[in-house]
């Protein structure tokens, strides 16, 4: 073997590479958030950058894409999505001169028996449950009592958002002293905009649901479409989605771009946190609601700051994906959660 052929266009190399998870860089979700972070950093610092699409969804294909990026001159490779946990576990040994930034996960082997992050890699995860908590809390505080959650698929990040959302809503209800918060909870089965999802959302709105947390990329487009028809509201996810539809009252954001930019900055400063597993929670500005673009009735910046401060201080303990088998097992006191299977 040996692929040591001279490259056709040697001058075209790209220093920072991103490998997309299956899905495109405009998926309204982690691919997009990550890519935007890379673009922002590299354009500011005038660094070449490029993204690569793997041929299929498998560890081997992801590794092949990484190889392609390395051959294309990549020094730093950013990979969003927990599906990269195994590929990066292997790649960090294969390409010792290349640095890996893994978003949404930590490198481990195939059967989870070994978690290991080498000096040339960093794993970044977000406290999505906190972001979901903020959204749920704000919604109930703002006067909504009939809520919905529509996740794409029950992957860990989505589940954390969902659990947090439920707990946040419940906490706000408790503070306000109201009972009977109604939450419908569902995973649509894909991350696409489909008429089925639109119909489901429309049916919830018709039955009285006031706001739906659309938690899964393009799923949001279907929910927004239904919301526009029903004059109802939507909460976006991952990135600030307020520009996509007037129905978006706020978005449960995680600081994908910021995290990527900061990791890249540290790499170029020589302070790369190699070997570490970073958790971007409220304390590291890893989660937030975009208050500038939010359309709340009563929920104010002050309210937000107060609850955010509590999260930073660690005063609020949240159940995560690993703490409850499904959403009906999440402890709530003031709300009724209906899991729509």
């Amino acid at each position, binding site marked *: 073997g040996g692929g040591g052929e001279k490259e056709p266009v040697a001058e075209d190399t790209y220093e920072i590479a991103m490998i997309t998870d299956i899905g*495109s*860089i*405009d998926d309204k979700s982690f691919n997009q958030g990550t890519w935007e972070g890379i*673009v922002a950093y590299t354009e500011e610092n005038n660094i070449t950058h490029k993204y690569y699409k793997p041929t299929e969804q498998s560890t081997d294909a992801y590794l092949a894409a990484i190889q392609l990026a390395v051959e294309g001159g990549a020094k730093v490779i950013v990979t969003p999505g927990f599906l990269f946990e195994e590929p990066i576990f292997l790649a960090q040994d294969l390409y010792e001169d290349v640095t890996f930034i893994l978003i949404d996960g930590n490198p481990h082997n195939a059967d989870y028996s070994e978690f290991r992050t080498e000096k040339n890699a960093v794993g970044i995860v977000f406290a999505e449950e906190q972001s979901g908590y903020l959204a749920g809390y704000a919604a109930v505080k703002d006067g909504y009592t009939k809520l919905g959650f529509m996740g794409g698929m029950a992957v860990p990040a989505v589940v954390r958002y969902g659990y947090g959302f439920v707990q946040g809503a419940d906490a706000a209800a408790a503070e306000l002293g109201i009972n009977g918060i109604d939450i*419908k909870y*569902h995973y649509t*089965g894909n991350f*696409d*905009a*489909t*008429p*089925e*999802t*639109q*119909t*489901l959302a*429309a*049916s*919830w709105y*018709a*039955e009285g649901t006031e706001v739906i947390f659309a938690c899964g990329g*393009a799923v949001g*487009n*279907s929910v*927004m*479409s239904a919301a*526009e*028809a029903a004059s109802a509201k939507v909460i976006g996810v991952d990135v600030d989605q307020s520009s*996509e*539809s007037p129905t978006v009252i706020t978005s449960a954001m995680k600081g994908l771009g910021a995290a990527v930019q900061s990791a890249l900055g540290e790499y170029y400063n020589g302070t790369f946190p190699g070997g570490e597993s970073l958790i971007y929670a409220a304390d590291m500005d890893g989660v937030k609601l975009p208050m500038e673009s939010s359309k709340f009735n009563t929920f104010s910046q002050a309210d937000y700051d107060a609850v955010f401060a509590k999260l930073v201080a660690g005063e609020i303990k949240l159940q995560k994906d690993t703490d409850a088998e499904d959403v009906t097992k999440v402890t709530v006191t003031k709300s009724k959660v209906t899991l*729509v*299977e």
Partner: protein
Amino acid sequence: MSLVFLVFQQTMFFSIPLLIVALGGLFTERSGVTNIALDGMMIMGAFTSIFFINQMQDTMSGQTLLIIAILISVVTGMVFSLFHAYAAVNLKADQIISGTALNMFAPAFAIFIARMIQTNGVQQINFNNTFRIGSVPFLGDIPVLGGLFFRNAYITTYIGFAILVLSVIILYKTKFGLRLRACGEHPHAADSVGINVYRMRYAGVIISGGLAGLGGLVFVVPTSTNFNATVSGYGFLALAVMIFGQWKPLRVLFAAFFFGFMKTIASAYSVIPILSTAAIPSDVYKMVPFIATLIVLAFSSKKSQAPKAVGVPYDKGSR
């Protein structure tokens, strides 16, 4: 009652594009050309028209914008269908092959172009939906019917019904329809009475392209706020609806609504009292429309009404 309205309106969102595209399929098959490229044609129609909306929505909005977009989608579908017509009619090529090629081409092309011309190499095309009609003046206030047909409606729904009526008239009441159908049943007979079979087949394919293109736009507008080079396989479902409808417009209407209704029930079950309490997983509900269709077909397919000459290239010399 609001539940009834909801189910009805949502059924429209599924059924109208299926109806329009299946009618398109009906025209081409009735002229004697199979068109499995309906899916690709939908994608092309949706792509150009939604890109147009995306570009123009700052200067225009509402029904004017939608109507221009509709025209664009129709024209795109027609132009794209010329490839199929040329292969199927002029070159007497295998129609499945050419259809498959167009189905592969359309999404690749839509993504390719979108990435080339949009900033940041983005493939999705966003649009603002300013096309919904809250309530049609006067008609919207009619009890029951107003709620069913004239509130929260799209002009495309009425266009869909208009196309149905037009299809029936064209197929059964005009010279063109008579000739078109003759070409699909017995092209040699048509040829022998001086009908230009090639021209009629071109017409059939182009009509299907136009309607499929329109169907693509109609499919995307009410159910999303962006377009991502896919119509979720609805072109193939429209093909199925056309066969289900036995190549007859009114039966196609029935088939489209049956399927759309089943889809709606399967998607909205969580708010339908009886269904929401039965602890049936959503995957099972999702299968229901397809299983129901198969069952109906099993009992209604004894005699197939497929045009006799469909899929067979017309060759004057052969007999």
